[in-house]
């Protein structure tokens, strides 16, 4: 192993570009995951037994769909979705082509985490808001979301970290970013240094994200 080369690789334009790509994929997929997963999680929670919109049929349907998506391994889901991805963003490779499978895999996962943290909200508090004449909308925005904020942030952290590993996996079908680099150099050309560097950057990224998430959770915990 060539240590000098390892150090030089840190400023290698291709590695820098790959890191940027990974960050873009991560940022966009996280955004869409939250935009889809949060409302989905809220609806699932509200439809569950004893809650505001309690609806057994609706709950069973949504819950089953979420379970199906969650039980398919990401690598397989990604390949299954190639046509869908092409339809949505026009291509199935590169940064753009990776985002739809990432979101479709992560949103149901995140929705489940949202549902779990909403379940942690004290039922008495929801009831108190109802007794004060709060509408279902007000209960969602002013009670459920603020009260479960630490849990939601923890959920987002877990989801983002999962998305980091998914972005790396997407390299298999030409997804772009660090995963792509690791596969092209490390796996196909036995270039150990590049592989190690990409793994190193991914580890650092995960550490930073987790630390940030933990700090935010702490900051918003009032219990």
């Amino acid at each position, binding site marked *: 192993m060539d240590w000098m080369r390892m150090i030089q690789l840190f400023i290698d334009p291709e590695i820098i570009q790959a890191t940027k790509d990974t960050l873009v994929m991560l940022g966009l997929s996280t955004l869409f995951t939250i935009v889809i997963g949060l409302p989905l999680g809220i609806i699932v929670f509200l439809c569950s037994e004893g809650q505001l919109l309690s609806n057994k049929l609706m709950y069973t349907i949504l819950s089953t769909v979420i379970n199906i998506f969650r039980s398919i391994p990401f690598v397989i889901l990604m390949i299954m979705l190639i046509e869908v991805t092409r339809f949505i963003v026009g291509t199935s490779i590169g940064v753009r082509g990776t985002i739809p499978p990432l979101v479709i895999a992560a949103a149901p996962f995140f929705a489940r985490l949202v549902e779990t943290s909403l379940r942690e909200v004290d039922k*008495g508090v929801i009831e108190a808001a109802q007794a004060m004449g709060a*509408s279902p909308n007000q209960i969602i925005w002013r009670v459920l979301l603020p009260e479960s904020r630490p849990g939601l942030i923890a959920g987002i952290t877990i989801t983002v970290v999962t998305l980091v590993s998914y972005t790396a996996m997407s390299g298999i079908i030409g997804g772009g970013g660090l995963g792509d680099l690791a596969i092209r150099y490390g796996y196909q050309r036995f270039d150990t240094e590049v592989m190690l560097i990409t793994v190193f950057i991914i580890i650092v990224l995960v550490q930073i994200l987790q630390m940030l998430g933990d700090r935010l959770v702490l900051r918003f915990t009032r219990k």
Partner: protein
Amino acid sequence: MINLTNVSKEYIVVKKKVNALSEINLCIKKGEIFGIIGYSGAGKSTLVRCMNLLEKPSTGQVEIGGVDLTALPSAKLQSERKKIGMIFQHFNLLSSKTIFENVAFPLRLNKVPKKMIQNRVDELLQLVGLEDHRNKYPSQLSGGQKQRVGIARALANQPDVLLCDEATSALDPQTTQSILELLLDIQRKLKLTIVIITHEMQVVQAICDRVAVMDMGKVVEEEKVIDIMLQPKHEITKKLIAETTGDDKMNTILQQADRKLLKISFRGEQTYEPILFDVIKETGVSLSILQGSISRLKETPYGQLIVEIFGDQASFERTIQSLQDHHVQLEVL
């Protein structure tokens, strides 16, 4: 003010019907403090939750301030609920918001202008004595303080009615006392109608005007508090009272036959008059006091004595006559 007509509530638990409430009829007047007492599972919470329709009655009508709540669509019900404050055993404050924000919460739901919220919350925090804690979070307060926040929040929208479900059950006796005094004070200032759920007779004695006793989903007795205390009719009522006064020990004495026993009840100012002394002077009878208590219900003092009369039947009857002349209430045991 609050009229319940034939209110019933049944739950289906594992395909079996549970009658939590059956055919409740209650009429709570404006400005009174009304107690609802009973043992665990009697249906007290279900009843009070039916009053603001947190629980929808299976049948029957709930009318508050002349509005039939059971007939309202949900948007109208939401606006009616703003006139009904509620406090809870476990306070149910928003843990993510400060004390100030908790009290401001119902006002914000109502879209009250910021400036007015500020003033109103300050006023309420002062009323419950928590001005200094406005920027703390609920987890930083004691149980009694949390309940004060609960009360301030319930009063924010200037309700006509305050519902309290076991509001003092999670508190120690001293804190309970201070919360009850606060409620009494608020009731006097704001002329609220207050409904208090409890399983402790002391709470009823301390602040209620009238009380309904519940057992197995039914109201078994409904009276002025003083009448319930001095002349309980239903077994459950007697049991609840006995627990507070320690009357159960008397039963062994009472079961001994051929003793001439009298239960004498005083109410109001006569409690402090030397009636017994006068009676002895008049009749020359000899007696001994087996048990006695003097207490207060809100402002009304009342007392109860159990005495044993020594002597023949004639002197026993003379004593009874003399006591009746003094207008005290008597019961031969």
